[in-house]
């Protein structure tokens, strides 16, 4: 009676089943754990980058009232300068005769940053006279005032000048402006905001104490306590010109400014421009060559050892580390073909195009191979030549697949750093190029190498700008990949 049971119901079989269930459970648990860990890493990375980037996008401003002293900038000089710049009218001399020699002197006087610095210093020493007391000599007092003036960014001086020249500000007025704080002050103010209590003992406060004295500190405290310090987004508007017409006026900020030695003035615009130009070069070089190579290999090339060899090489090329392409660019293009082209976006773009080429070829071949052969057969059956059937039917049907492959290749190229360093596209560029196509052949920088540059600076504000740059680059790459996925899914539904 005991052994009449089915073998599946025996005790040992039950044990086997239990152990199998346990193993499967453990495996599932491990899988979930791995997934959770990956998600955690990704999340904490994103969280820390995004959080850090916030203070790269916002900056501190100080409200100041500046007297635009006609004794520092002479009205005649300003008028002469305005006339030479074609500004229509001005306050003091409605009918001034443009004079080349006078204009030159006027230019020197108006453009000199020192003039505006002096206005700010005068403002400080007048408005906060009771703070700057107890100095032995006038020189010591001036030094202390100058130290506080350093807390206001150079950008403010340029802004006052530009407003004067354009006629928005008038000489002799007192204007109340929100002045961009310098990097050091900015870090301090943000720190004050982060911790709401008075952080007299914070690290940054101690640091600050080394750059201003007692009296200076009391001015800053006064600003803080009277609510004259604000932290606001500083994004700016990049200039947009199309066919010589200005569509968007430039306003300084993170998206509108080039890099700078002062962290508060550093922006991503020049780097974004460099990356855009390079991607343009990639598009122009890699796409036609890659697509035609794919069409040839997939539809025209005879199957033989040579084409097999080419195919293997193309696949291998896709796996070559990008720094090697950088070396190729440095050695072949810069040292041999076009000496002196170091750092030009056209060179960086060419190197990235080489790098992207295998990706484009592989993606295009896959897309062409996925076109149903019936299209081609139908065309051939109606008397189209092989070439006609390929270019009129196969290629259009493969286009969405090719486009998504190209976009993924571009996204990959946009994020490459090593080749840019190899071809010298990590120079310090403090001006957004406005020479149109000629920008392809002037020293430039790309977004990844700009981020790399900022990351190497241990100034806390540069660290924030690094994170902000990373967020921009990530957004660009994710948007491009999203577009590629969208095109591909549309394409797959259509088939």
């Amino acid at each position, binding site marked *: 009676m005991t052994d009449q049971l089915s073998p599946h119901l025996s005790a040992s079989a039950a044990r086997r089943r239990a152990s199998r269930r346990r193993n499967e459970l453990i495996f599932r648990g491990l899988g979930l754990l791995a997934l959770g860990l990956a998600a955690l890493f990704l999340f904490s990375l994103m969280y820390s980058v995004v959080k850090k980037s916030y203070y790269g996008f916002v900056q501190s401003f100080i409200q100041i009232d500046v007297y635009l002293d006609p004794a520092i900038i002479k009205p005649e000089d300003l008028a002469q300068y305005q006339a030479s710049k074609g500004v229509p009218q001005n306050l003091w001399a409605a009918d001034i005769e443009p004079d080349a020699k006078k204009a030159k002197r006027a230019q020197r006087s108006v453009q000199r940053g020192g003039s505006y610095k002096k206005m700010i210093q005068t403002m400080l020493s007048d408005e906060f006279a009771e703070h700057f007391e107890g100095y032995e000599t006038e020189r010591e007092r001036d030094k202390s005032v100058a130290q506080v003036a350093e807390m206001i960014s150079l950008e403010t001086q340029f802004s006052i000048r530009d407003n004067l020249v354009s006629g928005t500000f008038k000489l002799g007025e007192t204007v109340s402006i929100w002045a961009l704080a310098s990097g050091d002050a900015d870090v301090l103010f943000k720190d004050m905001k982060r911790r709401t209590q008075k952080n007299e003992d914070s690290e940054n406060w101690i640091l600050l104490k080394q750059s201003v004295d007692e009296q200076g500190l009391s001015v800053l405290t006064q600003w803080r306590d009277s609510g004259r310090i604000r932290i606001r987004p500083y994004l700016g508007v990049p200039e947009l010109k199309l066919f010589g017409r200005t569509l968007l006026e430039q306003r300084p900020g993170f998206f509108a400014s080039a890099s700078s030695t002062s962290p508060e003035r550093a922006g991503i615009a020049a780097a974004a421009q460099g990356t855009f130009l390079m991607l343009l070069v990639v598009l122009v070089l890699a796409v036609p060559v890659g697509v035609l190579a794919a069409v040839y290999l997939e539809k025209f090339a005879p199957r033989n050892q040579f084409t097999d060899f080419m195919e293997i090489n193309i696949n291998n090329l896709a796996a070559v580390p990008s720094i090697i392409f950088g070396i190729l660019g440095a050695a072949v293009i810069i040292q041999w073909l076009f000496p002196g082209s170091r750092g030009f976006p056209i060179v960086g773009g060419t190197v990235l195009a080489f790098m992207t080429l295998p990706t484009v070829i592989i993606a295009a071949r896959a897309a062409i191979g996925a076109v149903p052969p*019936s*299209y081609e*057969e139908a*065309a051939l*059956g*109606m*008397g*189209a030549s092989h070439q*006609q059937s390929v270019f009129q039917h196969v290629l259009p049907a493969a286009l969405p697949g090719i486009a998504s492959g190209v976009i993924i290749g571009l996204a990959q190229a946009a994020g490459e750093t090593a080749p840019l360093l190899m071809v010298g596209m990590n120079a310090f560029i403090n001006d957004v190029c406005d020479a149109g196509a000629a920008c392809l052949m002037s020293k430039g920088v790309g977004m990844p190498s700009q981020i790399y540059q900022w990351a190497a600076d241990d100034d806390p504000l540069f660290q924030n700008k690094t994170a902000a740059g990373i967020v921009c680059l990530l957004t660009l790459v994710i948007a491009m990949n999203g577009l590629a996925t969208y095109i591909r899914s549309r394409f797959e539904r259509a088939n």
Partner: protein
Amino acid sequence: MSEIRMQADDVNVFYGENHALKGVSMEVKSRHVTALIGPSGCGKSTFLRCLNRMNDTIEIARIKGKILLDGENINDSALDITLLRQRVGMVFQKPNPFPKSIYDNVAYGPRLHGMAKNREELDEIVEQALTSAGLWEEVYDRLEAEALGLSGGQQQRLCIARTVAVSPEVILMDEPCSALDPIATGTVERLILELAKDYAIVIVTHNMQQAQRVAGTTAFFHLGDMVEMAATKDIFENPQDPRTKDYVAGAFG
């Protein structure tokens, strides 16, 4: 009696080592439907594809023998293959319209070969082709609609219209109804009979009723041989070869 349009003489086809077609000779008459029947893999499609040299697209295929179109050998290397395919059109097993509008599908061939001088002439050709494919009534008000939006049977008739629009002399059809339901099949069969008033038609089919309904002549293939070719009535009612007899009786295939 209708005249002979195409004449195959001792045609052999090899796919690499595989001898797929063994010395087939046959005549294709104009204004007449010729059906090819036989078990799967016997070489019907292979033979059909010889008639407009579609086998050229298969790299491993080698074709031997003479096929005359109006007395001219189409296997001649000097022959313009696109001209041949204009004269010998093909309709495939699975409807394969281009992913374009209905109009553009039909207009593709005439445009390709410059058959219309202006838009009016092209419109004319398209309307005639769609009418002769029995599709005009159904689509005249949506010629710009996507061809892939049509039903399977409509798509197949569109493919026939597309072929007819090139004004071929011979139309080859490889199991044109195998993807269609009985009603659509009936429509296409009536269309074939209609087209047979103007064209020479060669049709491959697995459906013996279909062969009997549409074909004047039927050829039976078996393992690469053309076993027997005769008037359709004779093939089905009085087959000479025992293999034909077995096949039409449903013994194998």
